[in-house]
């Protein structure tokens, strides 16, 4: 089916963004409201399309719209077309819904910022790019959105670029993303070379005829792209620094939407991964590593935003892990993505609210006992907390529990390992999230005398409250009666696989019990450890593990040692080569020319007679040649 309305989803925020940027300061007074209304109207269109989609039978729910013929070179045809199916609409609602809430939140949060209009222009630009990413009907269209969100992320992380370290953080995010983008572009190239098309439907049709090697290549390149965008191992290091951006940005881009683009990409490419087991295994391994990695970093961070960022990394690790588990995992991955979008965005907004009340202090060791002063923030944050650690009946319980269960039931010994990792991750998650709660909202006050913690205005706690409701209810709504799984089934082809090879190694009850036990253990450890007085300055006589966890498990040291230093050495070597060898050769040639010119110059006396003599000698030589030749 085709539709003519899809383009407005993208066009509205894009237009608004350009409009606000061109108008400049003239739009300062009303720009934020305009942008918020645009975002809300995009949500309205999305909701309208969603309702219409619900009314259609499951097979004909996908909508397409061809905008124009983009590239037409020989057999290479790419249309700028949009595709709205069950997967896309989930994202559209998340992006526009959470996006609108965060727009509203930002009106208050950014009210003291001189550049609020620019901020909203960037936010709208992000919404447009992200919608293009999820609505594009081919890898090339997706790529445009993919780059667009990368740009938006860069602009927003570096929004306060008057601080050099923030600008550097933006640059770091951009560069790390570029590495992943190379993977995506390579994947597109291999796909075109293999299939002759880059549209999702075209590739899906021809995927059965392709060699496993090509599919594995595409899969690994897509995985590289996903690791870059979704801050997965080994390209994870940018996410912590990305917290330099304003907190709403962290909530929207670096928690709820953009960083989950990798999950979307892998889910969208399910037809490739399902036929490339090696790539799929890599996906699982990357996911497992990252979920542990992020969780461990989270245990050592004192910066509330960085702790949440580590948690985001870890939770996306869960999603990536789930996508690697094949047809059964996609739906759970997307479901966790949606619930995570609610509770993590809510917690980030809560963190922003705390910072707002604490004069932008981010160190949790200087919080303490804030629950009394910010009750609404504490409650919404607490609901998000219960959701993330997976306490029933909150959202995280339904989605994460399903992932752990699916992981345990994966075939072979692999299932035990990844299931164990997921379970351990749940334990650690419970620990560090409890730590955040204890340090921030309970205990004695440790803040400075001049700080006056206060509850945030309605414009801020309103969105937090809505997101908290989502954190509570979305899990049950989505999972009851396998609603979301069957909703997504036409996109990820899970129906036949679902029943065919579902090895029930562990009963769901067993897994759930284990997960709950893990959560209880994690919470208990945290309470025991942090119930006493917390020092305001982080102690230095800590165990080795804590030290390296504070240093983000040496991810930057690793990058520095493995990538930066050799790169610098190579550059130095190249500079030396350039100066010594190449410049030397050039200078030698120059010196030779100068030297020979000095010699030759002596023949140029300026005397006509000398030149005449040279002519005579030339004639002599000519005659001599003739003489010899005619001999």
């Amino acid at each position, binding site marked *: 089916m085709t539709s003519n309305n899809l383009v407005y989803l993208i066009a509205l925020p894009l237009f608004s963004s350009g409009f606000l940027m061109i108008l400049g300061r003239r739009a300062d007074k009303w720009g934020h409201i305009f942008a918020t209304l645009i975002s809300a109207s995009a949500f309205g269109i999305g909701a309208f399309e969603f309702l219409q989609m619900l009314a259609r039978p499951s097979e004909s729910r996908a909508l397409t719209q061809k905008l124009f013929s983009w590239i037409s070179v020989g057999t290479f045809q790419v249309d700028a077309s949009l595709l709205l199916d069950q997967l896309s609409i989930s994202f559209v609602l998340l992006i526009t819904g959470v996006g609108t809430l965060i727009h509203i939140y930002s009106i208050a949060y950014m009210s003291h910022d001189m550049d609020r209009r620019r901020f909203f222009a960037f936010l709208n630009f992000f919404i447009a790019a992200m919608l293009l990413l999820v609505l594009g009907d081919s890898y090339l269209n997706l790529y445009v959105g993919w780059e667009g969100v990368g740009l938006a992320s860069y602009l927003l992380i570096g929004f306060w670029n008057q601080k050099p370290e923030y600008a550097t953080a933006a640059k770091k995010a951009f560069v790390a993303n570029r590495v992943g983008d190379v993977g995506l572009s390579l994947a597109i190239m291999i796909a075109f070379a293999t299939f002759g098309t880059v549209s999702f439907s075209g590739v899906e049709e021809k995927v059965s005829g392709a060699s496993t090697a090509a599919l594995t290549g595409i899969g690994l390149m897509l995985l590289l792209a996903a690791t870059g965008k979704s801050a997965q191992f080994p390209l994870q290091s940018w996410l912590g620094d990305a917290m330099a951006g304003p907190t709403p940005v962290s909530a929207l881009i670096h928690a709820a939407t953009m960083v989950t683009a990798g999950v979307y990409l892998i889910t969208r490419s399910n037809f490739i991964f399902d036929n490339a087991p090696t790539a799929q295994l890599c996906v699982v391994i990357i996911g497992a590593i990252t979920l542990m990695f992020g969780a461990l970093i989270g245990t050592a961070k004192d910066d509330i935003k960085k702790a949440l960022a580590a948690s985001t990394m870890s939770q996306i690790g869960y999603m990536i892990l789930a996508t690697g588990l094949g047809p059964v995992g996609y739906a759970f991955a997307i479901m966790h993505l949606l619930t995570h979008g609610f509770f993590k965005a809510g917690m980030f907004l809560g963190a922003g609210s705390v910072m707002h009340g604490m004069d932008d202090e981010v160190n949790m060791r200087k919080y303490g006992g804030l629950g009394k002063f910010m009750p609404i923030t504490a409650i919404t944050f607490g609901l998000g907390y219960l959701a993330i650690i997976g306490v029933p009946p909150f959202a995280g319980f339904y989605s994460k529990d399903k992932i752990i269960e699916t992981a345990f039931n994966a075939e072979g010994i692999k299932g035990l390992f990844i299931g164990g990792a997921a379970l351990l991750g749940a334990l650690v998650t419970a620990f560090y999230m409890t730590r955040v709660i204890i340090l921030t909202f309970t205990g004695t006050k440790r803040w400075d005398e001049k700080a006056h913690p206060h509850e945030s205005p309605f414009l801020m706690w309103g969105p937090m409250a809505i997101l908290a409701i989502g954190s509570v209810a979305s899990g049950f709504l989505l999972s009851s009666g396998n609603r979301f799984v069957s909703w997504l089934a036409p996109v990820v082809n899970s129906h036949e696989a679902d029943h065919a090879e579902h090895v029930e190694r562990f009963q769901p009850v067993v897994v759930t019990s284990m997960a709950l036990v893990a959560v209880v253990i994690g919470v208990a450890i945290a309470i025991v450890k942090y119930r006493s007085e917390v020092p305001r300055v982080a102690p230095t006589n800590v165990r080795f593990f804590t030290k390296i966890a504070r240093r983000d498990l040496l991810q930057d040291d690793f990058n520095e040692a493995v990538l930066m230093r050799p790169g610098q050495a190579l550059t130095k070597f190249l500079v030396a080569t350039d100066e010594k060898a190449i410049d030397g050769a050039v200078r030698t040639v120059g010196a030779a020319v100068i030297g020979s010119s000095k010699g030759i110059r002596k023949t140029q*006396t300026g*005397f006509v*007679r*000398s030149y005449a*003599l040279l002519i*005579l*000698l030339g*004639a*002599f030589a000519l*005659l*001599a040649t*003739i*003489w010899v030749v*005619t001999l």
Partner: protein
Amino acid sequence: MIRLSLEIGQTQKPEAILFYILAPLSVLASLGMLVVRKAVHAALLLAWVMITLAIFYIALDAAFLGIVQIVVYTGAVMMLFLFILMLVGVDAPDSLTENIKGHRVVAIAAALGFGGLLISLIGRATLNHVSVGLAMANEPGNVQGLASLIFTQYVFPFEVVSALLITAALGAMVLAHSQKSAGARLSQRALSSARFRGDSLANAAGLPSSGVFARHNAVDVPALLPDGTPAKNSISGVLSARGDIQDPTQYALGSLPKVDDEGGDK
């Protein structure tokens, strides 16, 4: 027309005698051009070479060219040379010392090699080559034969050459045209007022004439002023520029004769 060659191919004895007398003379004359110090002597030697060449032309059945050679070269071109020599100074001898190191040695060596190779090649090319002779071609007469070629086959080059001549004449006029003489020439009235109303009345009665009074009146000898120094402005500008000025002091008296009391300073 004197026909010196009677037989096709081999020249007759009279021509041989002519050649063997005149050829060494022309070579000697041209060699002399290399060593004489004065340009005018070189011109005379060249005129001689050209006359011998004219004779050779006639001997070679090219009567028309022989006459043209005398009229154009010996007459017009050499006249032009002598005229220019007079303009720039006949008497100035050239220094024959070489001031570019090794130049002369290399030049002579190269020339000897060049000439040797040329002669060798000519010998190789004309060995056993029988000369056809111009008896047939000159049947209607040498001038008529040339004319029938020039005005038929060579008419286009002929026209081009005539254009070249006109262009050369025009070019020579443009080059030799003096900017000074073309400039604003002062009128007699202006000259007169400059003479009498100028800064000084020294030249009011005209410039001093050249020559030392009663001893030497040539134009290249400056007049002597009362204090015994030469008067620069008594000599034509061209001569002084050329350096063709003689020292007037050689004509000055050793000492002024004694003056009697009556004709003295009273």
